[in-house]
């Protein structure tokens, strides 16, 4: 087992563990921190896959901006006590069982996908994840969705102001 494989298993185990901890933690601040760790491990996977641009964007946008926003809101609300109302144990059990069966369905799909058996994800090599490749495609073939997402941001901005402003 080479270093890459070792890293893959390490990162995967860590990301699943911290994703579980997001669920289990009672304190919302701990949940946020565990989620940041999940995002870091996923960024690690991006590095393994040589998707360098997404690695840095994932760190800056997700682990940086978005999670800090979450943390900020939680601290603003002073939710760091165990004040969260709990669902009844039966509801939790039902949720866990339905999530588990969903996972079971997905796993069986993956196992029965015979044409995927022999396919490999290219690790370490391949230059499509580099910023010049992505940038060229983004501003030539993908320029329409790029421009249109500005409408999305505009509406989010207008909405956040209209809703967030106090009277």
């Amino acid at each position, binding site marked *: 087992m080479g270093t890459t494989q070792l890293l893959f298993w390490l990162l995967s185990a860590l990301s699943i563990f911290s994703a579980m901890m997001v669920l289990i933690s009672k304190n919302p601040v701990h949940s946020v921190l565990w989620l940041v760790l999940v995002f870091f491990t996923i960024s690690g996977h991006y590095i393994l896959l040589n998707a360098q641009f997404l690695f840095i964007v994932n760190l800056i946008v997700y682990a940086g901006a978005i999670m800090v926003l979450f943390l900020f809101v939680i601290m603003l609300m002073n939710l760091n006590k165990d004040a969260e109302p709990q669902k009844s144990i039966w509801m939790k059990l039902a949720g866990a069982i339905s999530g*588990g069966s969903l996972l079971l369905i997905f796993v069986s799909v993956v196992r029965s996908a015979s044409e995927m058996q022999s396919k490999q994800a290219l690790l370490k090599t391949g230059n499509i994840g580099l910023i010049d490749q992505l940038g060229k495609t983004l501003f030539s073939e993908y320029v329409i969705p790029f421009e249109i997402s500005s409408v999305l941001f505009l509406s989010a901005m207008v909405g956040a102001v209209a809703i967030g402003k106090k009277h």
Partner: protein
Amino acid sequence: MPIQYYIALAVILFSIGVVGVLTRRNAIIIFMCIELMLNATNLLLVAFSKMHHGAALAADAATKVGVEGQLFVFFVMVVAAAEVSVGLAIIVMMYRNVHSVDINFLNRLKN
């Protein structure tokens, strides 16, 4: 690395997110679990993009197959950022009125 490992990892993370959405009542935690689901699909998209790239690389060394998968991830992040700003604004608005982020606040008031 076999692509199935990546698919398995992504669906595990996705399912954890789904369980979180179903079992928690704190709106912020639910929202975080949704972000977890989005990240799981992002990972899956990148893995698939590298898979298609690897398959095309054998035929043509300068191929650009697979770029679209990574750009899709980029757009998912764009949308997620917009969603977060709106979602947190809604959560803050609700918190201002009821001092709680419980999704079933009104049900609790009735009981």
